[in-house]
């Protein structure tokens, strides 16, 4: 395979990437941090990363467009893979989120670098940081990639979408349904959505992370309470309700009114579906807009039910899969124009805070490169708009909550309050 034709979500990612070009990282990547017990040498890690050589043609590829169909694709390359592995000596108590932010804000070395690694030696243990390019990986795919590295498995070539923009009628129908749904959410433009944006858009600022680790026992109790209230498999709506409640206070503090809405654009992994199952490379998610008026925050039970109902409705109306299909049409739009369009659709006034929940799925191993894993965290960079996101991943039954934000977009006091609200929700007595 020398060409992989993008799906619509890949093209959205290209647009988000473009929105980040004036930021320090210059792209929309993400970091996965592995906290390992024991030391690991630079040489050993370098040797270990040679396991990725099978995937060299993808890892050294770049975006291109087919001249006749205009379909964008990933142009694979025959270059030799040389993954940049850095080594840094850190202090024993070095904070993973600070180290990850430092690494995440650093740009890749050119258009053909899509993965780099930094090893921070923390005395008796190691912090291993992988920076992934969203053009080639999403969070679920990156976990599968690490699992394949760990197992020394061969990397399978991804299936290709057809470059032909076939089934136009079907795709237009999907597009129309998506458009109707978005207009319905926006109440024909009458709804006002809360954003954290300062008057002056701080698009060139660096990305920071704040993290909260919830031990396994507390996480289990939290989800058991969620199941009691909302039934099985409703972890995402339950977490969305928590995030909605936590954002209501800073929103009100910034002058938002009771009838203003908080809109949470949530990414939903599609890997459970036939066409996306076990895909390592490229993007296999859809976007689900959850929203409620701020006034609802004073009724937590209603918020939970509303999030559950919205989730069911999004699946029932086929919004998630319609978006997946309809987006294939967008690939023909020039990227600068699409970037402008997507910044209107997916950010700015239409999004208060990004959200994603990645349950334990792709990476289940308890060791990496022979070292026991203490924790695995996802730390995604966030585009200038909405400028803040709350990302939750589960590893070894415990939860990591990561607030990713553009510095200057939220004050330290607001962050502390937000973290405290989230932390309290996991305390054994209070619940949410």
């Amino acid at each position, binding site marked *: 395979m020398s060409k992989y034709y993008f799906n619509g979500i890949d093209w959205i990612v290209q647009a988000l990437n473009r929105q980040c070009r004036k930021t320090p990282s210059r792209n929309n990547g993400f970091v996965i941090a592995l906290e390992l017990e024991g030391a690991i040498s630079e040489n050993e890690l370098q040797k270990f990363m040679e396991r990725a050589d099978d995937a060299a043609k993808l890892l050294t590829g770049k975006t291109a467009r087919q001249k006749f169909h205009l379909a964008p694709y990933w142009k694979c390359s025959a270059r030799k893979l040389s993954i940049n592995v850095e080594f840094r000596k850190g202090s024993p108590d070095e904070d993973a989120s600070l180290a990850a932010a430092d690494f995440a804000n650093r740009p890749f070395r050119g258009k053909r670098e899509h993965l780099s690694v930094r090893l921070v030696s923390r005395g008796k243990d190691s912090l291993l940081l992988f920076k992934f390019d969203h053009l080639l990986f999403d969070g679920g795919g990156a976990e599968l990639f690490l699992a394949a590295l760990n197992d020394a498995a061969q990397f399978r070539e991804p299936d290709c979408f057809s470059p032909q923009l076939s089934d136009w009628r079907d795709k237009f129908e999907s597009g129309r349904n998506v458009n109707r749904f978005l207009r319905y959410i926006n109440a024909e433009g009458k709804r006002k959505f809360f954003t954290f944006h300062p008057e002056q858009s701080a698009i060139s600022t660096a990305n920071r992370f704040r993290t909260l680790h919830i031990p396994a026992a507390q996480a289990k109790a939290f989800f058991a309470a969620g199941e009691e209230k909302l039934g*099985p498999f409703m972890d995402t709506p339950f977490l969305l309700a928590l995030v909605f409640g936590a954002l209501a206070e800073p929103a009100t503090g910034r002058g938002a009114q009771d009838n203003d809405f908080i809109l949470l654009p949530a990414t*939903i992994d599609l890997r459970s*579906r036939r066409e996306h199952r076990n895909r390592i490379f490229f993007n296999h998610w859809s976007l689900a807009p959850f929203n409620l008026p701020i006034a609802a925050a004073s009724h937590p039970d209603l918020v939970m039910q509303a999030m559950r109902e919205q989730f*069911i409705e999004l699946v029932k109306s086929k919004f998630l899969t319609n978006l997946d299909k309809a987006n294939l049409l967008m690939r023909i739009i020039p990227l600068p124009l699409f970037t402008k369009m997507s910044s209107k659709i997916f950010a700015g006034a239409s999004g208060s805070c990004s959200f994603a929940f990645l*349950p334990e799925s792709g990476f289940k191993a308890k060791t990496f490169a022979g070292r026991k894993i203490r924790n695995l965290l996802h730390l995604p960079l966030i585009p200038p708009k909405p400028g803040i996101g709350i990302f939750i991943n589960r590893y070894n039954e415990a939860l990591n909550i990561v607030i990713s934000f553009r510095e200057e977009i939220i004050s330290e006091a607001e962050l502390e309050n937000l973290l405290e609200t989230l932390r309290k929700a996991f305390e054994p007595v209070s619940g949410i």
Partner: protein
Amino acid sequence: METVSPAQIADTLREEIAIITGREKNEVEPDKSLAENGINSLGFVELLLAVEKHFGIKLMENAMSNADISSVNALAAKIEKITRKN
């Protein structure tokens, strides 16, 4: 409504799970939990919608417990119980 046996219901569930998760029907194990059979939250809602289509019952409106999803067979038994009541 025509009575359907738990075995028939389990068979339909296995078919639907196979469609949702992209597995072969014989890969869907009736004694394993929905999660072990590849169902996640998105797939679960899709499965509930399929149950509504096939059996005319809204599982979302019936209290569901962990035990009900402990296996495909357990879910089939739950559906059979509700259809019998109706």
